């Protein structure tokens, strides 16, 4: 099958291993990725911080280009790009005046009919149903699935998973043999766009995320966003410094996790490109699990 594809800038640079692993996984499942022709940057945080119309026009151009190429469903693996494009589509669909204005800025027609999906939705929809028999190496690790902000918020627009306690990625990990850990920082912010301009804040925020993952015994942090990856991986020295601890949990993309389970090589998946070396420890043998008490269904009985 064919799927529209918007890689976004960072996939060409800082997170090329994400692209490599997305490509590898898609290939394994016969998904042909058709890049949006002559795509541009979505404008990221910078654009909407500085100028609203620009922040809408840049993503709108991408969508218009996709429409022109007849791409009805577009995979956007970068959570930030996914968010910007989704929000743009929503805002323009809600406001005809704005839509007209943006169309005139673009000098292009724009309908807003393409459906946009993020990487986890794509995996959920096209990979999981065909997973049977493909897993050659169980992903036997305690994994902290980190969703970040932009996959789940604003929920009213993205309508993806449960905004406070998402589970889709955990489910993917479980399906490939992994054990997702219960932890508290699934949707906390990593500091995102302030990585360069306010590194100390990012060190703090990312540090707390990494720390919680470590404290819960995670052996790997799984992400679905280049920005998150950057902050949790490349900024590890800074965050370790902030934490005054040396945490060496590797951070990998969800597609890399799937690739590993499919038996792909580290090189194929670009694991060597990470700052924190990807050394995956096996999940320890657990003592026979204590049978959890039967789930109590609380019923609030009332009079009559």
């Amino acid at each position: 099958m064919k799927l529209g594809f918007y890689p976004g800038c960072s996939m060409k640079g800082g997170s090329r291993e994400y692209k490599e692993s997305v490509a590898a996984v898609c290939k394994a499942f016969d998904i042909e990725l058709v890049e949006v022709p002559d795509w541009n940057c979505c404008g990221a945080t910078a654009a909407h911080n500085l100028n609203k119309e620009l922040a809408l026009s840049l993503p709108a151009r991408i969508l218009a280009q996709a429409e022109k190429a007849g791409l009805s469903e577009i995979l956007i693996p970068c959570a930030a790009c996914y968010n910007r494009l989704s929000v743009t589509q929503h805002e323009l669909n809600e406001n005809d005046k704005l839509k007209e204005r943006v169309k005139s800025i673009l000098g292009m027609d724009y309908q807003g009919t393409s459906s946009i999906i993020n990487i986890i939705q794509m995996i959920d929809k096209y990979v999981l149903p065909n997973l049977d028999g493909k897993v050659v190496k169980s992903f036997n690790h305690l994994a902290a699935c980190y969703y970040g902000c932009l996959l789940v918020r604003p929920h009213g627009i993205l309508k993806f998973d449960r905004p406070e306690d998402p589970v889709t990625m955990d489910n993917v990990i479980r399906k490939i043999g992994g054990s997702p850990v219960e932890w508290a920082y699934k949707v906390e912010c990593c500091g995102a766009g302030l990585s360069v301009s306010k590194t100390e804040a990012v060190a703090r925020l990312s540090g707390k995320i990494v720390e919680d993952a470590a404290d819960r015994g995670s052996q790997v942090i799984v992400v679905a966003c280049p920005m998150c990856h950057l902050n949790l991986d490349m900024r590890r020295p800074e965050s370790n410094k902030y934490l005054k601890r040396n945490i060496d949990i590797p951070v990998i993309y969800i597609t890399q996790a799937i690739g590993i389970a499919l038996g792909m090589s580290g090189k194929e998946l670009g694991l060597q490109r990470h700052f924190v070396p990807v050394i995956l420890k096996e999940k320890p043998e657990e003592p026979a699990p204590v049978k959890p008490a039967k789930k109590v269904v609380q019923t609030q009985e009332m009079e009559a």
Partner: protein
Amino acid sequence: MSGTTHQTTEDNSLSGELLMHTHVESMRCYQCGKCSAGCPMALDMEYPPSVVMRMLQTGDPELEDKLLRSYAIWVCVTCETCFARCPMEIDIPKVMDYLREKSLKMGISSPKAKHIIAFHRAFLDMIDKTGRMYELGLTVDYKMRSMTLGQDVGLAPGMMSRGKLGLFPEMIRDKKHIAGIFSKTIKRKEGGQ
């Protein structure tokens, strides 16, 4: 607080302007503080989100001015946590976007935020020129603007060795189109950067 506090939104207050341009009703805020409680950057802000909303509610020009000059609006990372949990469903990130744009337009942005703004500008300039973000160029440009030459130098070789840093920017074919978009939006409003 001056004597002109607590105006209504019909006045030429900032909150009225917000209502008109973003449809966000700052008057809905009842100051529960859930936004500030959940804000990851609240510690760095001199006015956490709920205080920002309160300042808007007063309609006091002095407070509005303080707000537009604040560092808080720049340090907001638009993580949307506040909006996600706001019991009154107020789109605070949208408010922040608006305040930033206005602050910039009026040229009264917090000097403390100059690095952040410099980064954003460098970022946008890069897109303006190439259509896409190009990390090496962006870093160099940003460092020139922010005069933070020393910071993060250590990263470059690491990135380079991991194949994460291209030496040359990737350009899109229709650069004119992008330039056109810039000239019709951000440059139009700022009278050309």
